[in-house]
């Protein structure tokens, strides 16, 4: 009887996870955008995500509207309670999205769109972290107008920075995977910095969260739940050490990205375990927040039938644009034909020191 509700919630969780992963690496590229030394690298960074960003961001919309469909009151209460951070995220995503197109067309205003893209990505990532932090703290339901008192506590800010560095880590791993030459070297260099920052903040957050939120402490340190969190922590440590080691020396350029994805998935499971079984922490449970069973079933039929197809053609799109992104080959919408042979030439030009293995 409750199965469709949990299934719907699991699918929303899956959508959010896929969003965090896929928009994670393209937001990450945006976060690192201004750190890159030259315009040439920025062009290549942009090019490595240009064909995918729209599909990636659709997971955010899909997660939101599926929440609306299956858990209407959760969707309504959470969003009105988090009005300002949500709006800030939306503004940032507007600037970031539009920069893909406008930057490729610009001649004189390229710097402007570089900044719009980078700041948009940074603010979007940061506000997503803030939203996450506020959810972990617990959303207070109230009767009066929302947003009367505007308090920023330290914990959501910390989560904002954690999100920022986590996305930067994914972004740097993406660059190692999708680019070569100088841009790839930049990815490797910045990857270490992102790793150090992520680890430091993540460790700090993991110590602070149970100390400041009693609900979390109860979940993390009582059996049998504690076993899950211990297992997750061990796996995360192993994965992050492996990541550090793979940055410069690895069998394939995809290895750091695979490990970064593994780390993100583990962290996400930890987050899900922390707020389980609540839909709005710690006041409304998944079952309490669910809408009509008939509506959920109607939505699920479509998801079960269509989502595999969606995944198939998203995968196909990633395959069409597989391999390394080209430098100056295809700009967004302009000059369609690829220059033949550019791929092979660039492979030869790779610095030998990048091939230690």
């Amino acid at each position, binding site marked *: 009887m409750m199965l469709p509700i949990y299934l719907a919630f699991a699918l929303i969780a899956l959508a959010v996870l896929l969003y965090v992963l896929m928009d994670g690496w393209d937001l990450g590229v945006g976060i690192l955008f201004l750190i890159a030394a030259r315009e040439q690298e920025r062009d290549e960074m942009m090019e490595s995500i*240009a*064909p995918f960003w*729209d*599909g*990636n*961001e*659709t997971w*955010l*919309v*899909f997660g*939101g*509207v599926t929440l*609306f*469909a299956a858990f*209407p009151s959760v*969707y*309504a209460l*959470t*969003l*009105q309670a988090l*009005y*300002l951070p*949500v*709006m800030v995220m*939306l*503004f940032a*995503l*507007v*600037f970031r*999205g*539009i920069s*893909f*197109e*406008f930057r490729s*067309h*610009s001649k004189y205003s390229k710097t402007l769109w570089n900044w719009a893209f980078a700041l948009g990505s940074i603010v979007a990532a940061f506000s997503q972290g803030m939203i996450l932090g506020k959810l972990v703290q617990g959303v207070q339901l109230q*009767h009066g*107008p*929302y*947003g009367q008192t505007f308090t920023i506590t330290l914990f959501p800010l910390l989560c904002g920075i954690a999100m920022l560095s986590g996305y930067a880590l994914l972004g740097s791993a993406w660059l190692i995977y999708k680019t070569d030459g100088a841009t790839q070297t930049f990815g490797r260099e910045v990857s270490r910095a992102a790793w150090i920052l992520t680890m430091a903040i993540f460790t700090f957050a993991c110590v602070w969260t149970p100390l400041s939120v009693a609900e979390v402490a109860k979940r993390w340190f009582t059996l049998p739940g504690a076993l899950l969190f211990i297992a997750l922590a061990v796996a995360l440590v192993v994965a992050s050490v492996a990541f550090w080691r793979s940055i410069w020396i690895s069998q394939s350029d995809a290895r750091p990205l695979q490990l970064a994805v593994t780390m993100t998935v583990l962290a996400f499971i930890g987050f899900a375990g922390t707020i389980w079984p609540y839909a709005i922490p710690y006041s409304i449970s998944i079952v309490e927040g669910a809408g*009509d069973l008939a*509506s959920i079933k*109607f*939505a699920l039929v*479509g*998801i079960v039938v*269509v989502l595999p197809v*969606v995944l198939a*053609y998203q995968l*196909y*799109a990633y395959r*069409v*644009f597989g391999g390394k992104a080209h430098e100056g080959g*295809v700009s967004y*919408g*302009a*000059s*369609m*034909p*690829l220059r033949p042979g550019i791929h092979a030439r660039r492979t030869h030009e790779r610095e030998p020191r990048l091939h230690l293995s």
Partner: protein
Amino acid sequence: MTLDTITLSRLQFAFTIGYHIIWPAYSIGIAGFIVLLNALWLRTGKAVYQDLMRFWIRLFALGFVMGVVTGVVLSYEIGANWSGFARVTGNVTGPLFMYEALTAFFLEGGFIGIVLFGEARVGRGVHFFACSMVAVGTLLSAFWVLAANSWMQTPQGAILGKDKVFHVDHWARVIFNPSFPYRFAHMVCASYITGIFVVAGVSAIFLLRKSNREFAETGLSLAMWLALFLVPLQMFLGDQHGQNTRQYQPMKLAAIEACWDTARSVPLTLFAWPDQKAATNLWAIDIPRLGSLILTHSWNGEIRGLKQVASRDRPYVPIVFFAFRAMVGIGLVLFSLSILGAYLRCRGHLFTQRWFHIALVMASPLSFIAIISGWIVTEAGRQPWVVYGVMRTAEAASPLVAANVGLTAILFTIVYASLLAGFLWFFLRTIIQGPESSVLSDFPPPSARGRMRATPELFKGAP
């Protein structure tokens, strides 16, 4: 009007959704045109179709991305600003929006990369398929979102329970509610017409600038053929939609016509200043009986007046009244241009009459204004209801602090205005740069252009 939370939320939502709707309309129209060009290219192998397709894909990308970024905002704004609406109608509208994202947004997002960058990486057949999928995606998006909107206009298939929440008992009746087929057809046709007149206007710019002749002539010719069929079709669909409104939303129709008293043989009010407080029209210019003829297709058909309901249940008449006249007026202008285009084509002057090309350039933004006007008619005419006759707009708003909504409303205005400036800048520059063409057939020297001498004196100096 006090600037309380509800008013500010309404202003912000009206602005963000009104701004958004022009981009999907543009995308639907241009995506359809791209599929047509791609098909023509595959069939005929003529390079001019390939040039046109590539050029329009570049212009499509600009509008498409505007639609994407402003659309993401809406999917979260509904919950953030209209939590009452989301809670009460979520069982009904939620799954419809979910299906929109599932079947339409993913389709667009999945194939847009191949459309924009993939031509050299995939075969021609796959590229055509990708273009078609994006076009189908834009249509599916319209299908679901208009199903949700139409349900709000003419709700059925769901019951308002004791818990003050809608529960669906029949999905087919929810989706195919009485106003949906008309609204869907009217909106899709409007989108195609919008695209067509943008194509016509841009082609006319090339003709006026005397560059890329074959390219411009082919584009203009296709656009004018399509306009000749679609504009009259749209007028027919609009009439049908009006009949449907008379049946299901009589007060909206009364507001459109500024008709206060229920009567037979009502006149057609060409112009008036509707006075909401006194419930009467000032300075009315009427044509006797024509109102009944147009609205009911009979000389003495009955039109129900606004006084049938209490004044608090009436929409604000002036805005509905004037927006409707703007929409119909623009429709008549576009109709005249379509007929004129056909006439000029018969006479062999379609590509040479500069005054006609100037008129097309000036007309190309008009259909966007018509679309926004049409949406103002249908949305303002629905007031004070958010779900017609069942749920008031005031009950739908989130209990937010007015200052926060005011702040975001101001920010949206600034951000969206600068986006529009950026769009127009890059759009116009792409046109001025022209197609990256394999066909470089320019105009013949001036002496060879015999028919050009027919140009009226007035426009001789035009660019």
